[in-house]
């Protein structure tokens, strides 16, 4: 049996309604952009789940490494002054 080509893998991102975030739906196989869009629609939007679709070749996705999570995300945790609750507001001040 010869190796069978199942075409390239693409990641599918779907926007459920205008204004919403694009959310990862899953992946599909396709040989080109147009086929990728059509397959994404047929696979992930059979019931009006999407109003807009992005498809991206899986090989173009760069992902962080879970083993580096500590080092990679740590700087965010020690800057509590980035959160509004860090600040002391004067007694009686409204709508702030």
């Amino acid at each position: 049996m010869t190796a069978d080509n199942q075409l390239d893998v693409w990641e599918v991102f779907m926007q459920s309604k205008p204004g919403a975030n694009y959310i990862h739906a899953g992946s599909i196989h396709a040989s080109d952009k147009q086929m990728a869009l059509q397959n994404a629609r047929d696979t992930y939007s059979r019931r009006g789940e999407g109003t807009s679709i992005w498809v991206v070749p899986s090989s173009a996705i760069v992902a962080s490494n879970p083993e580096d999570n500590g080092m990679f995300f740590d700087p965010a945790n020690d800057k509590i002054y980035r959160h509004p609750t860090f600040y002391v507001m004067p007694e009686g001040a409204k709508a702030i």
Partner: protein
Amino acid sequence: MEQAQETLLREFEEKIECGFAIEPKDKMPAGYRKHLIRQMSQHAHSEVIGMQPEGNWVTRAPSLRAKQILLAKIQDEGGHGLYLYSAAETLGVSRDELIEQLHTGKAKYSNIFNYPTLSWADIGAIGWLVDGAAIVNQVSLQRTSYGPYSRAMVRICKEESFHQRQGYEIMAKMMAGTADQKAMAQDAMNRWWWPSLMMFGPHDSDSPHTGDAFRWKIKRHSNDELRQKFIDKTVQQAEVIGLTIPDKDLKWNEAKQCYDHGEINWEEFYRVIGGDGPCNKQRMEHHIRVHNEGAWVREAAEAYRAKQQYSKNA
């Protein structure tokens, strides 16, 4: 080396214990990966092979409404197969390998699809009973520990309730029809009931894969628990439309608050899994033939891409 493996396993199991989901790039024991590939590919193959018994009735559906619904349902099954294949591919196995494993018999698909669809009522029975049983299993799997599998299950469960309701509607319509139609519905019930119960797999005491799958939270409920849940919700639905469950030992157990059921014919189960079911050969031959006949489409798609790239570079 061995110690590193042990540390890895301990850390992994602690993560699972805390209820964290496992994602594709996370470290995982080889056994976990292997178990998932086996289970998810079997699940994907089942969705795809399951299109065949239903496809058998597309041209003979009794109305345009019924035909449209059946086509939409079969398309969903294909879609479910694709969700699951792509979730399985995140574990590092390719679609080619998955299909090859199916064709060589290394990977299985659900035994239920080795039974034939002899009448239109069988389409009702498949939707109501077979999809009904699958839903019970899939609802439980929505909480499985592997993220991509769990997400595929959530998506599938949203769509499956249409399948079950359309099947039950067919059965209800036939049970409100002529004597012949009623007999046809009961006949389908008689043939599909026991294979549907077998879909949940062997009794917990005889299930070879149970230990690791539970500890790693791939499975959240046992075969017998899920089977019981299916029986308890289906009996009442059968009664409402006047169908008889073909099990003389079926009775309500007041103390346990669930139904007791008769002995399942495990000899038949293992015989059909072993390849000697009514349609095993037909299902696999059909899949291989259609796959091979479609090779030119994949080749043409590749040639078209190459041509596009060539003209862009020229």
